[in-house]
């Protein structure tokens, strides 16, 4: 019974892998795109109008995101960002995988970032990278096949100290009990088991993003 199951799995895996990429980077890309979509859902729940733009042309039905962090101003590809419009408030933009500078002027990678559109336009015009102080929301996204190590949590503690703990949230697909303890101890925000179908955990993350937008609207 068990050996027959394993034989079937062994036969199936190469067929599945040949169709599309399931490597670590591909799964991380999928996860970042999914969390970007959840952030936009949160903005809409808070009453925003959301539209897409491309870096160097009108948006078509193909969204292009960065597979690894890059400069917000980069025009190597027609990278897509979302424009978020709340009534009577300056516009915001949401990006996937951009560099931001922290308190110490060091560079950090924001897997999903929501920031002022005015700053984003400045960055595109001047080839500069956005400072953490202009961000409304940063998501650190970690997609793992197994329980992520505590080292990732320590890195996130550093990132959130650099970029503002209120805006930063660590999000993973795993239950990550060790990281939960670490973040609870240090008063950081996190989302765990954020996966389609895990409605409670997904709602908790969307709620965090909604609170970030609520604070922005109240400014």
């Amino acid at each position, binding site marked *: 019974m068990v050996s027959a199951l*394993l034989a079937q799995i062994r036969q199936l895996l190469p067929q599945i892998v040949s169709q599309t990429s399931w490597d670590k980077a591909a799964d991380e890309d999928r996860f970042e795109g999914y969390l970007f979509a959840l952030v936009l859902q949160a903005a809409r729940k808070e009453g925003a109008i959301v539209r897409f733009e491309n870096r160097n042309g009108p948006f078509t039905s193909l*969204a292009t995101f960065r597979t690894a962090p890059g400069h917000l101003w980069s025009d190597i590809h027609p990278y897509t960002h979302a424009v978020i419009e709340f009534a009577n408030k300056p516009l915001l933009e949401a990006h996937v995988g951009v560099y931001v500078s922290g308190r110490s002027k060091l560079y950090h990678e924001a897997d999903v970032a929501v920031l002022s559109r005015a700053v984003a336009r400045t960055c595109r015009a001047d080839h500069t990278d956005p400072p953490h102080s202009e961000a409304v929301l940063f998501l650190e996204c970690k997609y793992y*096949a197994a329980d992520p190590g505590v080292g990732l949590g320590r890195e996130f503690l550093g990132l959130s100290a650099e970029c503002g703990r209120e805006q930063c949230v660590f999000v993973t697909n795993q239950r990550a009990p060790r990281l939960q303890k670490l973040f609870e101890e240090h008063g950081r925000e996190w989302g765990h088991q954020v996966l389609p179908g895990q409605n409670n955990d997904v709602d908790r993350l969307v709620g965090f993003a909604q609170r970030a937008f609520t604070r922005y609207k109240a400014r």
Partner: protein
Amino acid sequence: MTPDEIRTSYAELADALTTSGLGWIVEQVEQTVRAGRAVEKPTRIFKEEEREEEPAQFLGEQHGARRAGKPTAMMTLEPWPDSDQLLFLIDGVRQAIIHAADIENEQLRLLRTVAGVESVSFEPDGEPADREPLRLAGNHDERIQTLGRLLGELEREAMQQPTTVQGFAERIARVIHEDYLGSLPIGQRGTSRSAVAWEDLPEEAKEQCTSDALRIPDVLAAVGLALQEGHPTPDQGANAARVIEENLETLAEAEHERWLEQKRREGWRYGPVVNREARTHNFLVPYESLPEAEKDKSRNAILRYTGIAQRAGYRIVPAGPGEGARW
């Protein structure tokens, strides 16, 4: 699955993943396994010793009889059981392919709602990546569903371990004995017949530990708890610890009562002193008649239950349909 089947299945699945280019899943699982399992271990911290004159030459730390302070819980790392390692690997495949496909589909559904997105491409910013850009247009490959079903079946097989009363008792008994060894000062190990590794323990001492192990389910049942195979989630662990603490006195009394019954079955009776030959024991009395120090021993035994169960691969859960002990 038998322990051998579990180990073989892990090796088979790991090999199938690696040869299919999914070795990263195996690497991540093995990192988790190498990190070990953090468990709380009840112990007593040595009391501060008065300063003594330093010997001319340091001969290693010498411990006399442990002058124990108050009980405390300290952390220790233990290896993950083979069955958990296999379950981690199965879940790794599920995360890497099945959940990732769900994520792709949900991402597209949400982005379509927001801005009419039909597909998503991920492109490198700078040097071209060493792989083709990822293009997502939704994934409804039936083979992925088949894989999910097969993994579910394999997981069920892995969780069905042939556990007998004897197997259960020995697993718990070993941990009880390790717990005892851990409480001994280092210098005392190997100095008596019972202060040796489980394998070298006399049969009589093994039977004593086994009796202690067999009492645990009965004692837990007194407050509606049961042992179940598998490791506890953080919530299960916290709930079990809370229920035990709230019912400590009831459990300590139940522990003593079960010990009494066991001793009586073995032909022991009350006597003013412990006499192995005559089979008399001065604590063969109702719980309320015990001296406070003896009640404390029962209470401390109860407080070690969660750690002992966890290290033996069991969790403490509410007793109920499907939740009861399964040995």
